[in-house]
């Protein structure tokens, strides 16, 4: 088993995400993270799904995803073939930051930043690999974390114009 990131290019349509997730559910594949947003092509959305599976199964899942009518294309990648990140937000009592310099040092050391400072609480933001945001979490924890949240993975493939090559074909076909 290995971690794979699947990028799925879709029409923007109600219910489509559900169709895609049932493909995983049905095969008992746990979705470790999922994000959705508009892609570089206006109107076409992109889901990024992270799973840990055997490659043969990933191949089949990708084909089942592509089989859905409003899915343009799905690609799967090993971690070395993509650049990826996750973002984490940490909420801490502001007085902790004003009482000791330790928290500030941790924030600097991790290249995190202060996103908002309110009289009662402060929000720290860190973008990086999961291990990095987790590491920061562990270090901040003794100082009292009020809330913590981490986004799903977003990733970009190292191949040039992966989807665009495909999409130009689609556009050509649509013009016929």
């Amino acid at each position, binding site marked *: 088993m290995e971690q794979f990131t699947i990028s799925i290019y879709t029409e923007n349509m109600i219910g489509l995400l559900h169709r895609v997730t049932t493909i995983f559910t049905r095969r008992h594949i746990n979705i470790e993270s999922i994000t959705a947003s508009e892609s570089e092509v206006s109107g076409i959305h992109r889901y990024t799904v992270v799973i840990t599976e055997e490659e043969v199964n990933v191949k*089949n899942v990708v*084909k089942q995803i*592509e089989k859905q*009518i409003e899915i*343009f294309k799905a690609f799967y990648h090993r971690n070395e073939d993509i650049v990826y990140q996750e973002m984490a937000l940490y909420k801490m009592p502001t007085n902790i930051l004003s009482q000791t310099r330790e928290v500030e040092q941790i924030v600097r050391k991790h290249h995190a930043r202060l996103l908002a400072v309110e009289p009662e609480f402060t929000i720290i933001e860190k973008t990086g690999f999961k291990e990095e945001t987790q590491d920061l979490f562990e270090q901040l924890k003794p100082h009292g974390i009020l809330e913590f949240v981490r986004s799903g993975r977003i990733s970009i493939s190292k191949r040039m114009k992966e989807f665009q090559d495909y999409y130009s074909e689609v556009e050509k076909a*649509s013009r016929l």
Partner: protein
Amino acid sequence: MEPTQLTKTQVKKTTITGAEALVRALIAEKVDTIFGYPGGAIMPVYDALYYYEKELKHIMTRHEQGATHAAQGYARISGKVGVCLATSGPGATNLITGLADAQLDSTAIVCITGQVSSKMIGTDAFQETDIVSISMPVTKWNIQITKAKDIPAAIAKAFYIAKSGKPGPVLIDITKDAQFETFEFTYEPCHHIRSYVPNPQIDSKAIELAARVIDSAKKPLIVFGHGILLADARKEFQAFVEKTGIPAAWTIMGLSALNTDHPLNIGMLGMHGNYAPNIMTNECDVLIAVGMRFDDRVTGDVSRYAKQAKIIHLEIDPAEINKNVTVDVAVLGNCKESLDQLTKAITPKEYPDWLHRAKELITTENEMVIKDELFPPENDKITMGEVIRRISDISKGAAIIVTDVGQHQMIAQRYYNFRQWKSNVTSGGLGTMGFALPAAIGAKFGAPHRQVIAVIGDGGFQMTIQELGTLFQTRVDVKILILNNEFLGMVRQWQDLFFEKRYSSVDMVNPDFQIIAKGYGITAEKVTEREDLESAIHRFLSHDGSFLLEVLVGKENNIFPMIPTGASVSEIRLE
């Protein structure tokens, strides 16, 4: 509410309700028959239908499941899209079995459900169910419509998706307010969806490679499925088989794509298939799979399936390539075209030794299984096989055979000699008991001039027995053969073979089927003795109108050959 529709004699308005738009869209798609059942949330559509009675015939089944199977039978035989109509809530959920069946057996049907008003959605309103979510895994595509103006495009897309590429079921859920709303109607059929590639381009290199592999084969075997029927590739397939001279075997979904008695047709694959094709699957050196998907009922233990062979797969759906069986050459595309190209690319050859091997295995099965099934000892009970074979002979192999699920299904497919293209309608992938009666009604509407015979067990008959009412009311002619073994036969067989004869809940205490049939105005007869069989079959087949023939058969007959679950095709048992 005042109907806004106009009768035919008046000029057709273009500002119409969503409900009327739906009906006109269906007519624009050349639909002339639909199957359904009314109810609250679909009433505006039924009201619109009232005005279009002449153009659009609505067949009211006795249950929405029946409507889906009827639409399936209709679609499978006519090659057109089958259409169903149902109300929200229970009406919609009753469609699920038929949708699942159509999804697994690649049948083009469009189901239209009414939905509560858009304002009520999400409030747990009366008869509200989230049918779009419920049906998602069993549809090729589905959508909810809340605005009348979106109806024409949704219908156009639905028909295009249902019938293109690998066909499948589509569901459109239309809220009641969208059915009432009026708008300016225009209709534009759909021919293209930018994210959807139904017909992959055939790669000429794959054809060339496949041809080279076939040319080098010494013991090749063709296995074929539903894809040939769906692609309308009768001539192309027959030409391919005859030019190559390669023996061919069918999945139950591929049955009737090649005449049963064609000299190169060596029979049925899989669990209760024939001996020769199963054994030869694990002896061949090249396996050419055409329009089939290596279902587990066909492959047995897939890790021991045709391991010695190079496998060529002609398939329209990329998701089927390497799904169950890893192949050496994949020829993606519509098999009507790929078969044609492949036939041109191969060199004709003869395989006398290999065909001799087939003959040998066929003889073995004849000796050990078929003889006893067709010519049982005088004092034995009637067998299912002799009934089917007599019906086959008397109907000259020309009838449409619609089967339910169980032992009788396997027997009907094994012993009816199909001599006409596209004549077998069965529930293959889902194995839905209760399929046959409504599907036979649909098949008759799909081919009014052909004889339709439903072959059903005493168990499955009682799953959709209410559709006798549909027969009664529509007066179409469907012959119903009940092969009554007073058991849930197929389950009993498994209990016999694998659960040491612990017969748990398989014993059927049946009603008098003749009285039931007569209640519905359907002529009926029951045969218990062999000497009465022949004349009864003649009356059954020549009767003008529907006829129910019940034949009491041996209670504990088992279907052989059989590949037990988990066994390899080569471990097929003859007894």
